[in-house]
C-alpha cells in the first residue's frame, strides 16, 4: 500500500512540478481551457436567470375559467373544491360576477352601457396560477381538462406566451449543449497537444524507464495526473470567470427583473453546478491525456 501511495505521490509531484516549470505557458493553456468552459457554464446560468426573470414577471401564465352565466352558487363551490385538489396549481382565486360588474361600472364610459343592460352580463370566473415547472403541453392538457368540468363555459390560457418561452428555452438548452460539446472537444484537443509536448520533452526518461522495466501504467501515471490537474484547474478558472461575470451583471439584471415587476435576484452557480463543472473539466482532461498517451506512448 505504501509503495502504491509512493508511486502515486511521485507521479502527482512530477505533474505539479511540470505545471509550474513553465508558468506562462501553463497559464495560457489554463486560460484557454477556462474560457472554453466558462462559455457553456455562463450560458447555462444565463438561461436559468432568464427563466427566473420571465417567470417572476407579469407574464406568468394563468388559466381563466369562466363559468356559464346560469351557474349557481353550488356549481361555483363545486369547481372551487376541484381546483383546491389540483396539484398542478399553485393558487387560484374566485372573481365573482358581482365583483366584475362593480369593476366595470367604476370604469369611465362603461357605467352607462352596463346600466342599459337588463341584468349582470358577467359570469363568475376563477383565475388559476399553475406551478412554475409545468411545460406548455402540460398547461394545454390542464386547460382541456378544466373545459370539461360542469358549468365551465370557457377556459383561457395564455399558451402562446408559454409556448414561446418553452421554445426559446429549448433552443437555448440545445445551444448551450452544442457549445459545451464543441468547447469540450476543444479542451480535449488542448490537453492532447499539451501531453504530446510533455511526452516529447520526457522522451529520454520514458526510454530509460522502459528499458528498466516500467509498465505503460507507470510511465503514463504522471501524465494522467498532469492532464486531469490541468482540466481541474481549467474548471476552477471557468468557475471564477462565471462568478466574476455574474457579480458584474447582478445589478443590471436585477434592474431588468424590476422592469418586469418581479422580485427576481441573480442566481449564481450552485454547489452542484460547480461540482459538475469541475468533474466535467477533470474528465475531459483525463480523456485528452488518454487519447494522447494512446497515440504517442505507443510510438
Amino acid at each position, binding site marked *: 500500500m*505504501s509503495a502504491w501511495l509512493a*508511486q502515486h505521490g511521485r507521479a502527482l509531484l512530477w505533474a505539479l512540478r511540470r505545471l509550474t516549470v513553465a508558468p506562462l505557458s501553463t497559464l495560457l493553456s489554463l486560460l484557454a481551457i477556462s474560457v472554453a468552459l466558462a462559455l457553456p457554464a455562463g450560458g447555462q446560468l444565463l438561461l436559468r436567470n432568464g427563466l427566473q426573470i420571465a417567470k417572476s414577471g407579469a407574464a406568468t401564465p394563468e388559466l381563466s375559467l369562466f363559468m356559464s352565466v346560469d351557474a349557481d352558487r353550488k356549481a361555483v363551490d363545486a369547481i372551487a373544491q376541484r381546483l383546491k385538489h389540483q396539484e398542478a396549481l399553485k393558487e387560484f382565486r374566485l372573481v365573482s360576477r358581482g365583483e366584475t360588474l362593480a369593476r366595470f361600472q367604476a370604469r369611465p364610459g362603461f357605467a352607462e352601457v352596463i346600466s342599459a343592460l337588463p341584468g349582470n352580463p358577467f359570469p363568475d370566473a376563477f383565475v388559476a396560477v399553475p406551478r412554475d415547472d409545468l411545460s406548455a403541453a402540460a398547461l394545454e392538457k390542464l386547460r382541456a381538462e378544466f373545459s370539461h368540468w360542469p358549468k365551465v363555459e370557457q377556459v383561457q390560457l395564455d399558451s402562446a406566451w408559454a409556448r414561446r418561452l418553452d421554445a426559446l428555452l429549448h433552443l437555448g438548452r440545445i445551444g448551450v449543449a452544442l457549445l459545451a460539446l464543441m468547447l469540450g472537444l476543444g479542451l480535449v484537443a488542448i490537453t492532447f497537444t499539451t501531453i504530446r509536448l510533455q511526452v516529447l520533452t520526457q522522451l529520454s526518461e520514458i526510454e530509460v524507464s522502459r528499458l528498466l522495466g516500467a509498465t505503460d501504467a507507470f510511465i503514463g501515471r504522471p501524465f494522467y495526473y498532469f492532464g486531469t490537474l490541468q482540466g481541474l484547474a481549467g474548471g476552477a478558472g471557468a468557475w471564477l470567470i462565471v462568478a466574476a461575470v455574474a457579480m458584474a451583471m447582478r445589478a443590471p439584471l436585477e434592474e431588468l427583473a424590476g422592469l418586469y415587476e418581479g422580485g427576481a435576484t441573480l442566481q449564481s452557480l450552485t454547489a452542484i453546478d460547480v461540482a459538475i463543472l469541475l468533474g466535467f473539466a477533470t474528465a475531459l482532461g483525463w480523456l485528452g491525456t488518454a487519447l494522447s498517451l494512446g497515440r504517442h506512448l505507443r510510438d
Partner: protein
Amino acid sequence: MIRFEHVCRRYPPNIAALTDLSFNVEAGELVLVCGHSGAGKSTLLKLIAAIERPSSGAVLVNGQNVGALKRAGIAVLRRNLGLVFQDQKLLFDRNAFDNVMLPLAIAGYPPKEAGKRVRAALDKVGLAAREKALPVALSGGEQQRLAIARAVVGRPAILLADEPTAHLDQATAGDVAKIFRDFHQVGVAVLIASCDDTAFSNFVPRRLVLDHGKLQ
C-alpha cells in the same frame, strides 16, 4: 539460466547481425562476449533484454521465451535484469541518488527500503559521497559506476553490461571490471560485451567470441 537456440537476427534489407547462435549461460556464471566492433555483441545482449527480437530461433531466460513476450511480460523480465548500457542512459536532470532510485520506483519498492538499497548500491560502487551530484558533475568512470549501481540496486540474478569500460583509462577500467567480479562472486550471472578484454582478462573464466555474428 540463459539459453540461445539457433538464434538469428537480421536487419533489413537482409543484413545478418547474428547467425545460428546456440549457447547456455548458467546461474552465477561470468561470461565475456568479445569480438570486433559490429560483431553482434550488443545485439546479443539486446535479445536477452527483449530490446530486440530474434528473426528466428529462441532466446530463453529462466525457461521463458523472451521473443514471445508481450509488453507487460517484457517489463517484468527487465525488472529482473540488471542492465548497463553502452551509452549509460543516465538521466542528466536527476542526481546520482535519483538515478539509482529509478528501477526501485518502477518496481514499486517502499520509499524507506528503496532509500537504504540505493545508498548500499552507491556505497558498493564507491559513490556514497556523491549521491547528490548530477551526472554531469561526475567523471566518465564515476558515471559508469553510477550506471552499474542503477543496474544492481534491484539485486538482479543476471547482470548484462554492454561495453562498460569503453572510453575509460586503464586504471578506471580496471576498477569498473573489479565491480563486476565482485557481483559474480556473490552469485550473480554476469554477461559483459566488450571489444577490449584487457580489463577482464585476469578473472574471466569463459569467453564467447563473435565474428560477423557467428560464434567462434
